[in-house]
């Protein structure tokens, strides 16, 4: 692991990454750097390339060209080292319905080799913060959609990762659950964790993120803090920024 001067302090570096699936280009020429402790939002409509980017960052997909470094490690060459640093909350609620909520979270603690004592402490803490304590011993098959999504997040963060990839964590969530998750994300930031958050909720990005990258059709079309972006495009919010850049609203895709 060797850092150049440019790379120092950068927790995530995406260098000219392109990802193609046969005839489709999901991500094209993406360059991005995220500093440690930064809460970075990837904003864009469905199909913009946000999830593909996350999948490349966590080693699930190999870029067609370009390179990615996470936590100082080359994802292509040192995937296991990267996976020890990260926590990934996928867009789909990938939970095991035949396990209880507690067992689901414990399983991922074990997969991250969290020591038993720390696992127990973190587990209770996390279940409390995400409002799952009461139903923790119920099988997940009986959970509501919102509970499953909160559990989804708990499973990804039990091991207290230095870098968290949260892919649309609040999509299809009720208002109460969404606020609980937002509070939780703010707490991650307060503990100097690096967070990459993908979302197509403008208010979520605007409220939580230090820095925002707007993606459309696989390309990064704007980059800056929410206020910088608003100022640059003379917009009153990020929705307007997107409208000015693409000529359509973000939820229109």
């Amino acid at each position, binding site marked *: 692991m060797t850092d150049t001067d440019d790379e120092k302090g950068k927790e995530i570096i995406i260098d000219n990454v392109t990802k193609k699936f046969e005839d489709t280009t999901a991500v094209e020429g993406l360059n991005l750097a995220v500093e440690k402790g930064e809460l970075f939002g990837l904003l864009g409509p469905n199909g913009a390339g946000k999830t593909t980017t996350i999948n490349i960052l*966590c*080693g*699930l*997909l190999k870029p067609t060209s370009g390179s990615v470094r996470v936590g100082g490690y080359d994802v292509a060459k040192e995937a*296991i080292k990267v*996976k*020890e640093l*990260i926590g*990934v909350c*996928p867009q*789909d609620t*990938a*939970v*095991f319905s*035949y*396990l209880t909520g507690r*067992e689901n979270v*414990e*399983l*991922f603690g*074990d*997969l*991250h*080799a969290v020591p038993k004592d720390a696992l127990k402490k973190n587990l209770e803490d996390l279940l409390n913060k995400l409002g799952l304590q009461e139903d923790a011993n119920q*099988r997940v098959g009986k959970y509501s959609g919102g509970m499953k999504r909160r559990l989804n997040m708990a*499973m*990804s963060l039990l091991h207290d990762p230095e870098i968290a990839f949260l892919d649309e964590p609040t999509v299809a969530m009720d208002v109460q659950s969404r606020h609980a998750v937002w509070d939780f994300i703010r707490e991650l930031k307060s503990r100097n964790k690096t967070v990459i958050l993908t979302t197509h909720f403008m208010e979520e990005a605007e409220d939580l993120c230090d820095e925002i990258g707007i993606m459309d059709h696989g390309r990064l079309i704007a980059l800056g803090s929410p206020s910088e972006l608003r100022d640059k495009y003379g917009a009153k919010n990020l929705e307007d920024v997107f409208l000015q850049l693409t000529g359509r609203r973000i939820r229109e895709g």
Partner: protein
Amino acid sequence: MNHHRIFALAKKELKKTIREPAALFMIILFPVLLTLVFGTSFGAIGGTQLATYQIGVVNLDSTGTGQNWSQSFIAALTGTQILKIQTYADNGTAQYDLVQGKIQAVMLIPSNFRDSCDSFWRYPEEPSSWINTTIQLYLDSGSVFATQAIPPMVQQVLATSAFAKKQASFSMPIQISNPSLISVGKFTTFDFMAPGIFAYASIFITMIVAQSFVTDRENGSLRRINTTPTTPAEFMMSQAMSNMIIGLIQVALVFTTAYVIGYRPKGDAASLALAFGIITIFSLCNVGFGLITATLAKSAGAATGIAFLFILPQMFLGTFVVSALSQSAQAVGRFVPSYYVTDAVTSLFLRAAPPSSPTVLFDVAVVSFYSIGVLLVGIELFKRRSSF
């Protein structure tokens, strides 16, 4: 390789089997029910498989020249029309067939049989000049016919053929030994089916593994596990471990059920352990078939259908129905691994073959080779399909 991860994932798989009704039924309850149904149907009213009564004869007589008394004796035994004589070159093979129930008795004609007969005819009135010898007789203790009828019948035929006496009770230089009783059970139809049922239970692991992998792939669970430091080797090891445990539980339950309803296999504790072992190894083969199925299937429903492409040939060509198949179908069965599992367990439980017998060792080797090969192919194909 992190054992903690392997155990955690294996524990998850075991919980799935226990908690998901479909998996629980297919893997655990169905084999037990099948054993109960077949055991009670074919064990209690199946009757015996032995239709003929045969004596194995090992002729060690190689002395002297002139009249071949032993051949005359054997011909006379055959001439009774009651006893069917099967000659053997050595005692070991004859004993092997006796314990398998193929014959009811083994008779060893001693090497000095001819000398003994000759001495009688040279000095018919001088017993002190006779060369005395003994015919060894081994009988199936479980056969009333064998224990009651064969010794006096052999004695009678000996008296008439070798010594031209009508009465078997007269003094002769050749004695019939006190028969050594060999415990040979009468086999019910279920005795022949049970080894195949043990193998049959494990075959359905293919379907459960395939469904599980496809479901986990569809709902993103596999990808999610792949975002943790879990290596592919650890993941696959956990699958192998959990399914070997499931295979072991299956065979234990099926065996216990069979035992409760009266099944009594031959063989000792080592035979039992080896039988359990080979079925456990066989479960790895079914994990491999499950992975190949999961590679081919696009949905859990499709996985169920495709799994039967592996289940049916193994079931019909290699398990409890194999004995009812034609010779050619049985020959084809040699290409499916379950055939060798059934053959090994049959050798151990039905023929009382020792674990070190060549047949059993060959079967174990084939099953092990087959299982590891199929598992490796399955892992490789599934990795390519699922990027794990």
